[in-house]
C-alpha cells in the first residue's frame, strides 16, 4: 500500500499518513457497520431469551430494523433541558463512543494485521476503556436532573470499583506471556489461556460485565428506580450515541476476551494457513467468531440474572472479587515460578505441562473458594435465622439477607 502510493508520486511520510488514515477508516467504519448488525443480533437474542420473537417486521427476519431505527432517531428533535451544562452535555455522548473506538486501534485481527501493536497495549486498553466512566459522570452531572445525578453517583461507585479486579485479571495473561503487546499475548497462547486459567477468565468476565453497566450490574440505569439513569435527558441522536457506545463496548469486551483468553486469531492450527495461503482473513474470521461466542455468553448472563442491590454490588466486588483476584494472581505467579523455562515456550508441546499445572492450581483454588463461600453462607444464614426465625426457602430468603453474604 505504502509502496503503491510512493510509486504514484507521494513522499514517504505522506504515503504512510494516507495509508494509516485509510486503515483507520476501515477499522472505524467496520466498527459502526458491525454495530448495526450487532444491535439486531442482540435484540433478536434478547427476544428469544424472553420467549418472544424480537424484531421481525422490517426486512427479512427484521434485519433492516437497526437502519430504520437510525433513520427514525436522526430526525428526532434534539432537546436540551433547561439548566443543563451545554458543553458537557454535548460532549458526553461523543466521549462514550470515542472511548470504545480507541480500543479498536490496538486489536490484532491477524498476524501483522493490526492497527498498531503498542508495546504498552494492555495499559492502553485499560486507560482508554475507563474514559467511558467519565462520559457517564459527565452526562449525569450536566443534565440538571436528580435521577441522572443519582445514576452518575452509582456509576462512580460501580465502574471504578470493578476496574480493580478487571485489571488484576488482565495482569495474569501479561505475566504468562511476559509482554503487554497484544500480538505477543496471542502468539504465546499455544494452548488458549481459557483452558489454563479459567478463574482469571471468570474474574475478567464478571468485572467487565459490571464495567459495561449491563445486567445483573445495571444499577446506573435501573429503570424501576431512577428511570434511565445518566441518559434520562438525552434524546435523538445523542441518546443513540450512548446506545451505540454501550453496544460497541459490550462487543469490544467480547473481542478482548478472545484476544486475552481464547487465543485471538488462532484457531486450532488454522493460523498456519494464514501464512501459507497468504489469507489474513482467516485470522479475522476466527477472531470475530470467538468474540461472538464470548459476547453471546455475556448476553446470556445479562438476560438470566436479576439486578443486584448497590450494597450487594459493592460487597461482591470488595469482599469477593478483589481478594479472589489477588489470591489468583499470587497463585498463578507461584506456580509459574515452579515451572522451569517459562520464558522459552514456543510450541504446543512446551505449553502443555505448564498449562496442566496452572489448571490444577485453578481447580484447587476453585475448591478452596467454594469451601470458604459455603462456610460464609452458612454463618450468614444462621445469623438471619437467629434474627427472624427459620428461613424455609433459600430463594425467598434472599430478600431478607442484608449486606455481607459475599456471593
Amino acid at each position, binding site marked *: 500500500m505504502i509502496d503503491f502510493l510512493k510509486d504514484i508520486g507521494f513522499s514517504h511520510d505522506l504515503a504512510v499518513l494516507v495509508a494509516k488514515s485509510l486503515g483507520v477508516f476501515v477499522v472505524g467504519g467496520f466498527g459502526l457497520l458491525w454495530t448495526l448488525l450487532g444491535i439486531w443480533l442482540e435484540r433478536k437474542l434478547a427476544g428469544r431469551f424472553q420467549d418472544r420473537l424480537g424484531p421481525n417486521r422490517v426486512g427479512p427476519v427484521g434485519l433492516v430494523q437497526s437502519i430504520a431505527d437510525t433513520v427514525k432517531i436522526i430526525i428526532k428533535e434534539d432537546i436540551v433541558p433547561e439548566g443543563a451544562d451545554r458543553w458537557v452535555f454535548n460532549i458526553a455522548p461523543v466521549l462514550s463512543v470515542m472511548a470504545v473506538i480507541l480500543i479498536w486501534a490496538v486489536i490484532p485481527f491477524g498476524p501483522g494485521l493490526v492497527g498498531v501493536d503498542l508495546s504498552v497495549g494492555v495499559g492502553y486498553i485499560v486507560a482508554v476503556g475507563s474514559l467511558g466512566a467519565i462520559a457517564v459522570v459527565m452526562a449525569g452531572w450536566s443534565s440538571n436532573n436528580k435521577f441522572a445525578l443519582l445514576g452518575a453517583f452509582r456509576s462512580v461507585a460501580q465502574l471504578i470499583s470493578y476496574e480493580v479486579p478487571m485489571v488484576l485479571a488482565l495482569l495474569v495473561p501479561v505475566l504468562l506471556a511476559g509482554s503487554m503487546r497484544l500480538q505477543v499475548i496471542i502468539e504465546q497462547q499455544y494452548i488458549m489461556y481459557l483452558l489454563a486459567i479459567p478463574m482469571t477468565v471468570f474474574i475478567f468476565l464478571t468485572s467487565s460485565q459490571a464495567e459495561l453497566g449491563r445486567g445483573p450490574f445495571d444499577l446506573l440505569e435501573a429503570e424501576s428506580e431512577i428511570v434511565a439513569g445518566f441518559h434520562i435527558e438525552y434524546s435523538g441522536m445523542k441518546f443513540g450515541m450512548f446506545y451505540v457506545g454501550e453496544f460497541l463496548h459490550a462487543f469490544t469486551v467480547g473481542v478482548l476476551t478472545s484476544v486475552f483468553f481464547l487465543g485471538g486469531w488462532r484457531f486450532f492450527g488454522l493460523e498456519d494457513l494464514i501464512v501459507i495461503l497468504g489469507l489474513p482473513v482467516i485470522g479475522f474470521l476466527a477472531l470475530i467468531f470467538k468474540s461472538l461466542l464470548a459476547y453471546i455468553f455475556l448476553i446470556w448472563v445479562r438476560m438470566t440474572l436479576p439486578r443486584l442491590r448497590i450494597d450487594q454490588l459493592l460487597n461482591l466486588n470488595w469482599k469477593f472479587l478483589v481478594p479472589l483476584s489477588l489470591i489468583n*494472581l499470587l497463585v498463578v505467579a507461584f506456580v509459574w515460578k515452579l515451572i522451569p523455562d517459562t520464558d522459552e515456550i514456543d510450541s504446543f508441546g512446551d505449553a502443555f505441562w505448564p498449562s496442566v499445572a496452572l489448571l490444577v492450581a485453578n481447580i484447587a483454588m476453585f475448591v478452596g473458594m467454594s469451601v470458604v463461600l459455603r462456610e460464609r453462607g452458612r454463618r450468614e444464614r444462621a445469623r438471619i435465622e437467629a434474627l427472624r426465625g427459620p428461613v424455609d426457602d433459600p430463594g425467598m430468603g434472599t430478600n431478607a439477607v442484608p449486606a455481607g453474604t459475599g456471593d
Partner: protein
Amino acid sequence: MTVHEWLFIGLFFALGWMLPTIPIVAGKLLGPKRPNKIKQQTYECGIETVGNTWVQFRAQYYVFALVFVVFDVELIFLFPWAMAYNKLGLFALFEMTVFILLLVVALVYTWRKGALEWE
C-alpha cells in the same frame, strides 16, 4: 517507528471524535426545532422539580473512590513486574507477595472498620 505508532493513535483519536459527532450534527440539522418551556423542563416523571439538582451526596462514595485510588496505584506497580516476571528470580515473587500483602492488610483494615458496609 514509535512515532508512527502514536500517529496512528492520534488518527484514531480524530476518527473517534468524528464518527459520533457527524450523526449528532446531522440529527441536529435534520430534526425539528420547536423548543418550548414545558418541553425543556427537567424530566421527573411529570412532577415539577423541587429545589436544587446538585444536592449533597453520600460521603461513602468518596470512601470507595479513595480505596480505588490505593489499588489503582498498586496496579501500576504490578504491570512492570508482571512483564519482566519470566526473567526475574524467585526473589521477585516474595517481594511482590509482601507488597500485595501490605495492601491486603489495608483492605482488611477498611473492611474491619466497616467502611465497606453500605448503610
